[in-house]
């Protein structure tokens, strides 16, 4: 799966924006993940060349952090908080309801909305007092402002 010339240039540009600094690797991976919905092996190779570090180092960092993936992720996916404060107001039951309805969701641990749980993040939009209906409504509207 090769990247087009444009994509290659975009990744090079991201690295240049951070002055090709290896300590900015996580920022770079964020930007690439956002632009391409993943950090593919091909992208990792380009970053490695641009920052003059090994592909192994990039692979190590990419696999350590939950935010990065090797295969594309839907940008508007539902990330449901499964931590204690949301558990206390039914996050596990909400997850089970979404499962029964066939709505895909991922687990995240704390979104900082602990007084208005259950909390979820759809793209970059935070949803409080989440219910299946409120999540569906937020999903429907989230394309407009992101």
């Amino acid at each position, binding site marked *: 799966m090769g990247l087009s010339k444009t994509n290659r240039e975009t990744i090079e540009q991201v690295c240049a924006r951070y002055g090709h*600094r*290896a*300590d*900015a*690797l*996580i*920022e770079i*991976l*964020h930007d690439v993940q956002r632009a391409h919905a993943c950090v593919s092996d091909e992208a990792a190779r380009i970053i490695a060349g641009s920052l003059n570090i090994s592909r192994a*180092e990039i692979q*190590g*960092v990419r696999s*350590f*952090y*939950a*935010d*990065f993936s090797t295969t594309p992720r839907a940008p508007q996916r539902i990330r449901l*908080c*499964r*931590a*204690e*404060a*949301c*558990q*206390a*107001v039914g996050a*596990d*039951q909400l*997850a*089970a309801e979404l499962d029964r309805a066939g709505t895909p969701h991922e*687990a*995240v*641990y*704390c*979104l*900082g*909305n*602990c*007084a*208005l*749980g259950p*909390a979820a*993040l759809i793209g*970059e*939009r*935070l*949803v*409080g*007092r989440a219910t299946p209906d409120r999540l569906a409504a937020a999903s429907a509207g989230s394309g407009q402002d992101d």
Partner: protein
Amino acid sequence: MTESLTLFLSRDAAARSVGADAVAQRLQQLAQQHGTTLDLVRTGSRGMLWLEPLMEIERDGVRHGFGPLGPDDVETLFEQDFADDHPLALGPVEAMSWMQAQTRLLYRRCGVIDPLDLDGFERMGGLAGLRVAIAQSATDTIEAVTASGLRGRGGAGFPAGIKWKTAAEAPADQKYICCNADEGDSGTFADRMLIEGDPGLLIEGMVIAGLAVGATQGFIYLRSEYPDAIATMRAAIAAWEERGWLGDDILGSGKRFHLTLRRGAGSYVCGEESAMLESLEGKRGQVRVKPPIPAISGLFGKPTIVNNVLTLASVPDILAHGAAAYQALGNERSRGTQAFQLAGNVKRGGLFEAPFGLSLRELIETHGGGTLTGRPIRAVQVGGPLGAYLPASMLDLPLEYEAFAAAGAMLGHGGIVVFDDTVDMARQAEFAMEFCAEESCGKCTPCRIGSVRGAETLAKVRRGEDVEANLALVEELCTVLTDGSLCAMGGLTPMPVMSAIRHFREDFKSEPLQVDETVVG
């Protein structure tokens, strides 16, 4: 109807999560229909999260509140000219009991001004601390921080002045100030609320820290789960640079300090300071072996101050009003105010800043109004996922570092999560181990493997398999985790587990019990 109208509405992520933007949109529409010029100021949050979206109007210098508002309430607000007899009127906001009972030092601008309004920031006391720091010697600044009794607000409660002195005295060509804004503990949102509501206070504290220890570069490590906070902090840094409050010539003093925001990437353990430093260097967030401590050898091997958001944000006031004023607040060795965060199953949840020493009961029952579900409180977890579960019988415990330590608990970052009587404490203990297994950085064996074994063993207990023997095994395993882990992740996971077993033994049945599979994550 008046021709021009100024309204204040929160832009805090929590307020937006329950519809503040839709309210804003409706306010604009209605203003247009009424031929009114609307100046809608988007502020941070007051911290009364159960009232969000909370809107305020100023009359004779006093803010009157309305909330929680939905878009459909806006029309009646206009019809009734925002009068105090509207069904959702709250009256003067600062006279409300939740606000009156607090001592707002850190959050005094939060919910009042536009977080990016630098003039408003300065008008309400901003920069006063920084000006003192510029005028006096670095030694005097460190002395003031030490004398104030300020302790780290991230959880460990280490005296800030001692850390600063160590870094200041360490000889180096470059030093760093790193703000730990990786607020990953469930039940905590104080850092997020401050960054979204008054980012200037944190920046001011960081510049002061830089001047005090001789660091010219700062980093804010802010978690990626907080997109709104990231956007606000980025904008605030740019605005400060633009004004010359940050950069090569701070407030015309010739002194230098630069600030960079770095995002986390979804790893809980990066809230541990050495893992955070690794992450800031662009590496896997694995903890470092201590010593050396970061104040001697931290980021890129240079002397580094790592402080929590609220620790750094406490400093400007200490300098502006003197260490003695700060020291006068609080109890025993817990000085100043703490931002308590009331969360989980609670009727009135939010942020409550008060001097140390008030009781859990006062906070949860008097201010929080008990549980949201109306059922009895059964358990309270204080201090995040690594904090102890306390039974309702211990609610009179005063909220201060030493009293909590003596009770086998910890105050941590001040997060309080309330559970009602439907909670299964054996499941909570199992989750604590599962969470540790999920988030362990993998560097040390007790945490990496112990957490997996702990979760498996607690699952057996929950299935009623050989309960006594398996609980004994869990206890033994917890001792290994406590004594053998490199950092607090493995070292403190036993705290929720063992406190659940100790205080809620009845949930760890010796009879096989019916496990509800739907609640198993």
